[in-house]
């Protein structure tokens, strides 16, 4: 490495770590973005120094839902082969968050490489802006659906921008694509066959007309007339077992493996797992070995996590857009026994200010699940969520509104009967505030 870049790296690392500890000591936040922001302000070309420091290259994961989980699975699959990986595990997926993650990790300034792989989830809007500065070896696209229209604009605009970007790539980059999502598959149609790799679920599970798993293709009228591509890696014969995970048959050219087991729940996590396996295959990992590693992978932060609060099972589900919310409702279809629901809906910072999306959720499907005894809404938009519940024609149960999540939780757990579970569905900032609180309470 040249002298200046080593100096920049050294200063940037110091700056990031100093800002990180300072912002945490001053309780200014979690310090996941601020340090990187400062470093990028000091050294606008920092990325050109950081990017080449991964011997086997960078892998970027983008899309509306499943970024964090796909990244986590992939990191664990790659580490399982003994490779060193740098990642943004806490979901800080803006440019500043990625830079923070890189420089908080062991930097190994004296060496040419910081790690074998850099594996980062990246916000769709950030990807569009900076793809070419990352020079990824592999780009993974999970799915696209409407999410925070006040921040990102419409799907179609984003998909078209990504199409322009990948068409213009002047370096070798393979793209791993969700073949079940027509908006993602559309991106594949402009790529050479050797540069694209489709994963997906075979069979009738993925339904676009019900809006349960994917958004319809925004480029065609009825959402059905899409070009169909051969899937390079697929799952079929799926059996889901509520929160315990799923079992399925895994297929790729010439090979099929029966009864592959994962501990991550829900259909959407099968797609996340396929995305990670597909990427693992592309970097040359052995499929059988990867499958053996799969059953060690557990849910990430606030994504179907289970807590025990004074003998009560409390489950946390992150819901931040209609399709993600519908996924969780689909998962909860298998929920046994009696339960109470707590919705935590904020409209702060990372949530986006427009919460009209809660009306695009097929909440009516939630009420088909038996055993719901009570629903409480909370967060800064507790009232809006309660109205959403009221106008969705729910079955007979108590509906309570409490703008304080902690009070709502305390009172709800006070009313809960033996054997009942508490299901907490929270959007982004609600989750990041509530989860640490719950963790403390469960200690």
């Amino acid at each position, binding site marked *: 490495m040249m002298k200046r870049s080593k100096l920049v790296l050294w200063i940037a690392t110091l700056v990031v770590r100093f800002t990180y500890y300072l912002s945490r000591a001053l309780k200014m936040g979690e310090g996941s973005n601020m340090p990187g922001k400062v470093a990028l302000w000091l050294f606008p070309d920092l990325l050109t120094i950081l990017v080449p420091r991964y011997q086997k290259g960078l892998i970027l994961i983008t899309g509306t839902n499943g970024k964090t989980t796909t990244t986590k699975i992939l990191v664990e699959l790659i580490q399982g082969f003994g490779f060193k990986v740098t990642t943004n595990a806490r979901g800080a997926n803006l440019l500043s968050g990625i830079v923070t993650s890189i420089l908080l990790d062991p930097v190994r300034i004296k060496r040419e490489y910081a790690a074998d792989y850099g594996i980062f989830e990246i916000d769709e809007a950030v990807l569009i802006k900076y793809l070419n500065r990352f020079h990824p070896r592999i780009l993974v696209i999970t799915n696209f659906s409407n999410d925070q229209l006040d921040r990102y604009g419409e799907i179609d605009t984003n998909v078209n921008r990504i199409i322009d970007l990948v068409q213009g790539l002047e370096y070798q980059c393979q793209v791993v694509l969700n073949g079940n999502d027509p908006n993602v598959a559309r991106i594949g149609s402009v790529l050479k066959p050797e540069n694209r790799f489709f994963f997906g679920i075979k069979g009738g599970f993925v339904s676009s007309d019900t809006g349960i798993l994917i958004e319809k293709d925004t480029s065609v009228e009825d959402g059905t007339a899409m070009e169909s591509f051969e899937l390079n890696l697929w799952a079929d014969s799926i059996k889901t077992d509520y929160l315990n995970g799923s079992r399925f048959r895994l297929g790729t050219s010439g090979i099929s493996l029966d009864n592959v087991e994962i501990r991550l729940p829900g259909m959407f996590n099968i797609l996340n797992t396929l995305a990670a396996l597909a990427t693992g295959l592309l970097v040359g990992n052995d499929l059988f070995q990867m499958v053996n590693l799969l059953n060690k992978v557990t849910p990430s932060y606030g994504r179907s996590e289970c807590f025990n609060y004074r003998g009560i099972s409390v489950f946390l589900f992150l819901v931040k857009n209609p399709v993600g919310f519908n996924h969780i409702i689909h998962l909860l279809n298998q929920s046994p026994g009696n339960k109470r629901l707590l919705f935590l809906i904020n409209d702060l910072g990372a949530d986006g*200010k427009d919460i009209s999306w*809660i009306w695009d959720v097929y909440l009516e499907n939630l009420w088909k699940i038996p055993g719901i005894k009570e629903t409480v809404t909370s967060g800064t938009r507790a009232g809006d969520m309660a109205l959403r519940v009221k106008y969705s024609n729910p079955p007979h149960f108590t509906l309570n509104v409490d703008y304080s999540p902690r009070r709502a939780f305390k009172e709800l757990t006070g009313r809960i009967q033996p054997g009942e579970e508490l299901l907490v569905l929270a959007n982004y900032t609600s989750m990041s505030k509530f989860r640490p609180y719950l963790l403390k309470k469960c200690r």
Partner: protein
Amino acid sequence: MQLRLAYFYPSLMNLYGNRGNVQTLALRCRRRGIELLIQEVGIGDQTNMTGFDLAFFGGGHGKEQQKIRQDIFATKINNLRAAIADGLVTLTVCSGFELFGEYYRPLEGSVLKGIAIFDARTEESKKRAIGDIIIRSELKSGVTQELIGFENHSGRTYLGPGCHPLGRVIRGFGNNGDDNTEGARYLNCFGTYLHGPLLPKNPALADYFLELALERRYGKYDLAPLDDLLENETRRRMLKRIKGNNLFKGRVQ
């Protein structure tokens, strides 16, 4: 008692939770023993509007506007015009509102002709108006009501003398950020940029639409009051929050 609602392009104009408006009308009818029949009207349907009491147009993706405009001119415009002239209670939101004006002029490409129910013209601007909005609306003479919503539009709409605004902007941007107007009204046809969706948090407006529809169909209306504690408390908090937070008149990105 029965009312019939035509729900236009439910799958193409489905952004911003706009179906919540239809759900609100449905529940508020059901609780009063009024049967609300909802018929979806899509591309190619040549629906006779004379049997309908209410019509709803939501907001859609930018690119779907062209398709909807073509379809409406090809199969629906005469029916719709006649019904609106006859007092059909119609709500159009966001791009639906823009479609009901004379034209929409995008930054690039050719002008999109509207169906000219409203004496209104819309120009696309580079900056989107995004944020919470409160308007004051005089629905019936002497009765004013604050309407709460969220706006997210790049269109700047200017009204001519042939229609009235739906209300005056208290907080937020409104039609164009210049003249304080928001939305439009011509006979019983209403246009607005407010989503959120509009009706769940503005039950008085939902009931006003039902009153207009019942009066037109049956010559009288008698809307029993409903338990709106939740609606009113949510409104109270939102009004306080928006007025407290939003010191600036509008937020433009």
